[in-house]
């Protein structure tokens, strides 16, 4: 839709053929750019259709409207749109009992479906002890709504998510990462592919926040892993305005949009293996977070407990088409591979060279843009690589005892940000450091 707005801004009439299921999303995008009157023509061509007959019939059915969209005189509203009613709620949104607050927030569409902590003035003030930036500091504007992301708004959403004040530096860095054009957040977050932000935390802050890098790091139960991702999800919705089925057009959705946050077990990286943030160009003692946008997560079993069994399982279970792969390697496998002489770089190079499938399993063979950017293979049995390059793979050492490995498939890049800590950091960490579950034995 932004392209249509750009076209109209050049004083040229435009009409947009859009699948009938995307009308609301398209209208939001145009309105967000200040041009609510852009003419849309809903069509019934199935999404990303490859069947010529369906395309021709769908377009033919819409053509009268296309022609009308280019020739029908403008209405007064199209010529000069009336100002919209403000959709803000004011700084104080609501006053009531806990259950009423929950109902209010849910009905406003401000939650992820789970109950939220009431973001009272007092709770937000405490959350703000996790940063020395002023509450009104503008970190940026988040697409698609271009909502103003102030430090206070971050804190409000963090309170709702149940995060601790020690999360604030990570949350601010996360917003900075998402607003970096290189992250292409505006594309991934609302795409039909249901890509979800996957956050990997490195450096000293992992331990200070007790972000799980061990057993079940991706499972519920750790307040940092659970609430940091949740807070980001709420911000995407409440600050960016990306709402499921309205602007976020993920076909199936993704449970990782609740949260997908881990720390790397840097200490389990064998000698010579660099943690993710060092691979990304940062110093080992810097606290960093890295975001990518996978939409799938596959756990696989090795074909043997030696290095060959691990590598064979990886090369045999990689999936054609996706362009980016984060390998989650448990410490035991990392040590096994290192003992046999493998580095992270060796693994990436090996998988690029030898993890291949017959061409007929590649989208390129069928004329569908896919993983391999080259002339489409002519012979169905020719082997084609599954990775675009060795640089399309990152390895993160994480997880507990056991042999399962994880493959997180995406199509984006890895973007890493350094986390800026406030001057009072040590005291804030000290205050919340021992906020841990004490499980009983049975």
């Amino acid at each position: 839709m932004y392209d249509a707005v750009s076209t109209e801004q050049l004083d040229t009439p435009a009409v947009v053929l859009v699948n009938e299921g995307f009308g609301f999303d398209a209208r939001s995008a145009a309105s967000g750019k200040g041009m609510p009157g852009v003419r849309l023509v809903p069509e019934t061509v199935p999404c990303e259709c490859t069947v010529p007959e369906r395309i021709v019939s769908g377009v033919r059915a819409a053509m009268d409207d296309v022609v009308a969209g280019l020739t029908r005189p403008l209405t007064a509203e199209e010529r000069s749109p009336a100002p919209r009613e403000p959709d803000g709620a004011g700084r104080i949104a609501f006053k009531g009992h806990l259950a009423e607050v929950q109902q209010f927030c849910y009905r406003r569409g401000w939650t992820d479906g789970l109950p939220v902590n009431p973001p009272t003035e007092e709770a937000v003030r405490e959350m703000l002890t996790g940063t020395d930036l002023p509450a009104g500091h503008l970190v940026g504007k988040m697409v698609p709504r271009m909502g103003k992301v102030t430090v206070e708004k971050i804190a409000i959403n963090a309170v709702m998510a149940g995060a601790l004040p020690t999360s604030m530096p990570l949350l601010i860095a996360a917003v900075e990462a998402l607003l970096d054009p290189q992250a292409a957040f505006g594309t991934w977050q609302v795409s039909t592919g249901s890509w979800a932000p996957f956050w990997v935390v490195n450096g000293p802050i992992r331990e200070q926040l007790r972000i799980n890098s061990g057993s079940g790091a991706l499972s519920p139960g750790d307040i940092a892993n659970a609430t940091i991702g949740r807070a980001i999800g709420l911000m995407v919705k409440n600050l960016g305005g990306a709402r499921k089925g309205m602007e976020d057009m993920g076909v199936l959705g993704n449970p990782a949009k609740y949260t997908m946050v881990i720390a790397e077990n840097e200490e389990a990286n064998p000698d010579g293996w660099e943690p993710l943030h060092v691979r990304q160009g940062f110093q080992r003692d810097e606290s960093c977070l890295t975001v990518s946008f996978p939409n799938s997560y596959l756990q696989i079993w090795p074909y043997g407990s030696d290095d060959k069994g691990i590598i064979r399982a990886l090369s045999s279970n990689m999936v054609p088409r996706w362009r980016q792969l984060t390998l989650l390697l448990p410490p035991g496998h990392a040590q096994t591979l290192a003992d046999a002489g493998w580095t992270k770089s060796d693994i990436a190079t090996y998988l690029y060279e030898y993890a291949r499938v017959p061409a007929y399993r590649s989208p390129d063979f069928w004329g569908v843009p896919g993983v391999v950017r080259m002339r489409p293979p002519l012979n169905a049995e020719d082997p084609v690589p599954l990775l675009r390059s060795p640089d399309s793979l990152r390895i993160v050492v994480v997880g507990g005892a056991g042999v399962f490995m994880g493959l997180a498939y995406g199509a984006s890049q890895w973007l890493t940000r350094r986390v800026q800590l406030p001057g009072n950091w040590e005291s804030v960490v000290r205050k919340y450091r021992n906020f841990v579950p004490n499980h009983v034995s049975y």
Partner: protein
Amino acid sequence: MGGIYEVLSPWAEVDPVPLRGISPRLSDLSGKRIGLFNNNKLAAAPILDAVETELRSRFDGLTVARFGRRAHENVAQTEDGPRYEQWVKEVDAVVLAVGD
């Protein structure tokens, strides 16, 4: 029931966006040069092929000019922005296919 909570709004404020109307329409498409904009999604090109066929069959002297976006981003914000702007100036109207 417990206490009363006064809660702050998590919903972002936005700067007012200046509203703008759309461009005047054409009176007729005959003899006009229509831009067909491909947003780089899978179905966009064949949809535009069908649009071209329909337009040519309906309007005498109508010609078309194609433009393809190379990334999933607003083309005006990419390095193709100047080329796109020039292309728009050379057509009378544009049909965009989203292709989703």
